[in-house]
């Protein structure tokens, strides 16, 4: 009887324990991605992927119809400034926290203000910063580290999309509150 009780308790704990484990896995995968890209280009730098084929292995399920630029941000030392010209065709700027949540995004096809030729400038803040202290477009990350991903359509003549990503920037700012 005692053995049955132990077995039932172990199975119950095992069943419940899968959920904290499941919460850990996305963090581990994001950590691995961060490590891979930071090793290549460093924190708060853009990593361009201007051609996607079977050798593209930095993230699963890459789209051959998109060009990518990613920035592994670290807001420990202060905000990060992101600037990106908007091309004519589909373009988006997405923000992911370390548990993979896509917590913010900007899309050129839904917002009239983001038409071709616009320069999007975003100040990305850490969880403890006060957004009211920063001018312009501000996005607050729920975690100190995360991923900013630019996607641009590569369908047809993709020279404009390529130029847009090549002219985009992800730059750490000095930790000073602007006047």
């Amino acid at each position: 009887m005692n053995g049955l009780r132990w077995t039932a308790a172990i199975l119950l704990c095992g069943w419940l324990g899968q959920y904290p484990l499941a919460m850990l896995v996305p963090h581990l995968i994001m950590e691995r991605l961060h490590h891979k890209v930071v090793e290549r280009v460093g924190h708060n730098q853009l990593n361009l992927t201007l051609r996607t084929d079977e050798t593209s292995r930095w993230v699963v399920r890459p789209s051959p119809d998109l060009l990518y630029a990613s920035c592994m941000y670290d807001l420990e030392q202060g905000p990060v400034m992101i600037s990106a010209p908007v091309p004519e065709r589909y373009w988006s700027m997405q923000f992911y926290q370390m548990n993979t949540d896509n917590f913010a995004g900007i899309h050129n096809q839904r917002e009239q203000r983001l038409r071709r030729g616009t320069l999007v400038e975003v100040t990305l803040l850490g969880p403890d910063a006060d957004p009211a202290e920063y001018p312009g477009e501000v996005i607050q990350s729920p975690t100190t580290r995360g991923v900013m991903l630019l996607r641009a359509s590569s369908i047809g003549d993709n020279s404009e999309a390529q130029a847009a990503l090549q002219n985009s920037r992800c730059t750490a700012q000095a930790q000073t509150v602007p006047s």
Partner: protein
Amino acid sequence: MKKLHTFRWPLAALLSLAASILFLLLSLKQGLGNSFLKNGDWRTSKSTGSSEAGAIDKTVIAIGGLLASTREDSIYYILNSVAGEPLRLNCRYRIEGNDYDADWWSITAYGTDYFLIPNRDKRYSFNNENLTRGEDGRWIIQIGTQQEEGNWLPVGPSGSPTESQSSDYDFDLLLRLYTPGAAYLQQPESAPLPVVTLESCS
């Protein structure tokens, strides 16, 4: 027996951890199963990329679709079986469709390693612009390992040499709809989608 009594708590903790891993693997094996919506043979989720997604769903997405966007930006439909039969490399399939309410859309084939499938033509996907269509705007994509006329989407073994296949299908298809219209945002389980059929198997 006395030793077992002494170590019963650490042993129980270890067994619980092992059981947790086992339960998690079983949940992941179901993959996009229980909590995902079905639309024909395609499956999707309303909570992909969102903070509302449950722990198991987030893990499934992190493993097989890292950095997926929320559906306001793009909605993803995945297909790895037709009428209950897993997609196989020894079979030919046909996808038929028209146009869909989105800024643009694409259909991409992926190996069981979740990466693009190596092929001589470097053809990994079709999108709404590069398909050859009939006069009525409709299109057909043929999927298989042998070259075909028209819109042929080649498939083959995955590119990871050491990858041991744990799935029961040989490849899968991902339909992406970028900036999707209201039908996909509000009724993803009944919105119009391409139809995939099995043509033949060898």
